[in-house]
């Protein structure tokens, strides 16, 4: 068998076996609820959603069984171990080959046959295995009974039924897991010769294990969301409502909660405090001056960006947990094919409107490298992250809402162009769409709240903190006159080409660190409408933040990262200059 051979050979794919670190793997089909089981077992919060491929990089957590400490790994979902299709699935197979102490195989009670097929494949690795029969509640709702005692006797492994989302059955699971791990080596499993025989076996087993009670529904539910009519009008309406909610809720939070708190309560106090205690003018200016880091360092991340982080992730989390996103992908599949994408690209793209880094990570579930590169480039060039969106709204919305919509239209046009160009350049064929749609579920408020909280926390750690540090250095360099000197040095580009005042060099320098910092410093500048829009266009296409360039290097190569850095800078300045000229001409024409 190829697989057995591969286990012995030392290829680059092989993870070295470390005997000191005892691991337990959590495996199963995509979207079976592994991450929920993981959270329940380790007490750690991990991102869970209602679509295949939420977990692209395995999460690790500690699990204590008796006196032993184990590392539990939440492995990305996989349909078929012998045919791992994408990066995320290949990770799963590699982990299985790394000789873990045990495997917990999570079975889907509502999709038993594919679950058992995967289980038989896992059993061929001769590891101690325990199975968990999850989504029991959904199976019960369909009036389907599964005789897990029978399944235990057939597979000769312990099987426990659970409802991961409520925590039902976890006591029994921990006890059995302890038994499995302490028992060590399993009875040797005799693999089926052919995949065909495997399926035959499973169908026979299921015929004996599954009993339909009277009233069991066996057919399909009507799913109007995936039919072109009325699915497409519903999708358009839904997206419009979502967009309006993100903007409206964010602006409301900012206007009525955060801004009054910071501007009227906190900042006057801070200024009084600094004025009272600090005499030295340079130090005082660094703290509360032009780029005063106590003022801008708090106002920018927390009153201008945070409201949109909250509103965006609330909306996104609802979409994720309902199972709607894969349906949206299917509706868009045909249109996406015209620009070199397929429907599954919807999820990484939407994540990109939150933050580019999880978006680039999520491309791992895409079935080809070409798709991964196209999506990563779209996200780097033309998809503003939520921080930058918040900054755009702060900059433009008070002047004209049309300008905000204009920026998003330019962004959309750029994405189409990037898709068309890269589709021609990277000549590989588009992989076929082949995807299972998750059941539609009502999102649970508690889960939603936890998820939004987790993402807000991540924004504060990974977004706000670097922003505060950047503002601190900016205020230091500003007060020392370094930014002014840099502005003069860059003035041929800034003033000569972009028609902006030389102080506009500041956002270009800060913007390398964080995406929204290409926008925020412009807010307090005295600019014309054309200059504001030019600044926004430059900001949109300019270098995505340094952390995104780093993740491009990690996920693809240094070459891709360097090329993106160069291309985004060039595109931003080039297009900015054109907007400045066209804008200037239009103003002349109409005044």
């Amino acid at each position, binding site marked *: 068998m190829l697989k057995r051979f591969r286990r012995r050979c030392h290829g680059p794919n092989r993870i070295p076996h470390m005997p000191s670190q005892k691991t337990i793997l959590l495996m199963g089909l995509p979207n079976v609820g592994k991450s929920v089981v993981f959270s329940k077992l380790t007490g750690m919060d991990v991102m869970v959603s209602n679509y295949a491929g939420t977990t692209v990089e395995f999460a690790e957590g500690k699990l204590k069984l008796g006196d032993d400490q184990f590392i539990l790994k939440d492995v990305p979902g996989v*349909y078929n171990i012998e045919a791992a299709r994408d990066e995320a699935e290949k990770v799963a197979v590699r982990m299985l080959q790394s000789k873990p102490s045990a495997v917990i195989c999570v079975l889907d009670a509502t999709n038993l046959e594919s679950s058992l097929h*995967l289980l038989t494949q896992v059993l061929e690795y001769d590891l101690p295995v325990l199975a968990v029969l999850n989504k029991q509640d959904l199976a019960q709702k*369909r009036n389907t009974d599964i005789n897990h005692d029978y399944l235990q006797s057939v597979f000769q492994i312990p099987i426990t039924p659970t409802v991961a989302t409520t925590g039902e059955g976890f006591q029994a699971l921990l006890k059995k897991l302890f038994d499995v791990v302490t028992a060590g080596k399993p009875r040797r499993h005799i693999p089926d010769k052919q995949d065909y025989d495997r399926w035959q076996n499973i169908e026979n087993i299921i015929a004996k294990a599954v009993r339909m009670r009277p009233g069991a529904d066996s057919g399909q539910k009507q799913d109007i969301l995936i039919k*072109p009519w009325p699915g497409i009008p519903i999708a358009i309406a839904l997206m419009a409502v979502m967009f309006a909610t993100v903007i409206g809720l964010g602006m409301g939070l900012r206007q009525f909660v955060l801004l009054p708190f910071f501007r009227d309560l906190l900042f006057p106090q801070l200024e009084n405090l600094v004025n009272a205690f600090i005499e030295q003018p340079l130090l005082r200016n660094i703290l509360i001056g032009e780029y005063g880091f106590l003022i801008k360092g708090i106002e920018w991340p927390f009153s201008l960006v945070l409201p949109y982080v909250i509103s965006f992730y609330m909306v996104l989390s609802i979409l994720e947990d309902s199972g709607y996103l894969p349906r949206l992908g*299917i509706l868009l599949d045909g249109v996406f*094919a015209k620009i070199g994408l397929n429907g599954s690209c919807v999820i990484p793209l939407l994540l990109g409107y939150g933050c580019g880094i999880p978006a680039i990570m999520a491309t791992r579930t895409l079935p080809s490298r070409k798709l991964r590169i196209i999506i990563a480039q779209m996200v780097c060039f033309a998809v503003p992250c939520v921080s930058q969106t918040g900054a755009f709204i702060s900059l433009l919305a008070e002047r004209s809402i049309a300008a905000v919509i204009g920026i998003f239209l330019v962004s959309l046009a750029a994405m189409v162009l990037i898709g068309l160009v890269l589709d021609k350049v990277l000549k590989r064929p588009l992989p076929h*769409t*082949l*995807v299972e749609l998750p059941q539609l579920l009502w999102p649970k408020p508690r889960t939603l709240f936890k998820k939004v909280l987790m993402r807000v926390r991540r924004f504060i750690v990974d977004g706000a903190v670097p922003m505060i540090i950047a503002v601190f250095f900016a205020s230091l360099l500003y007060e020392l006159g370094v930014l002014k000197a840099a502005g003069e040095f860059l003035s041929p580009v800034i003033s000569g080409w972009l028609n902006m005042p030389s102080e506009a060099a500041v956002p270009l320098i800060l913007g390398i660190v964080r995406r929204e910092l290409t926008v925020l410093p412009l807010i307090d500048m005295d600019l014309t409408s054309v200059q504001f829009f030019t600044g926004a266009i430059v900001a949109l296409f300019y270098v995505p933040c340094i952390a995104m360039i780093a993740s491009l290097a990690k996920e693809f190569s240094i070459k891709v990262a360097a090329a993106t850095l160069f291309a985004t800078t060039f595109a931003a300045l080039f297009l900015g200059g054109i907007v400045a000229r066209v804008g200037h001409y239009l103003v002349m024409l109409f005044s």
Partner: protein
Amino acid sequence: MNTKLDTRTVTQNESLDFASYINLNELTPGQQCTVMKVPDIAILPSLGLRIGKTLNMITRSIIGGPIIVGIDHRTVAIDQNIASEILVKRLSGC
């Protein structure tokens, strides 16, 4: 793509009369069928697309998008190119 026919399921009573089979693209929404031949793509069986399974055609998408079928309780979207290689037999009464 290797689309070798899996003849093991064809019983002796049934002739190898593929002319009476149609491909998945030719079904109209609402029709049911039995799968007779599946291309050799490793993930298809795991999605429930195996010989002998009953499918329910739900809808086709616009602009060359995928065909959407129901198998047991699952909903699966299949690219039209793959669908054209899946041969099915209409269930009587459809």
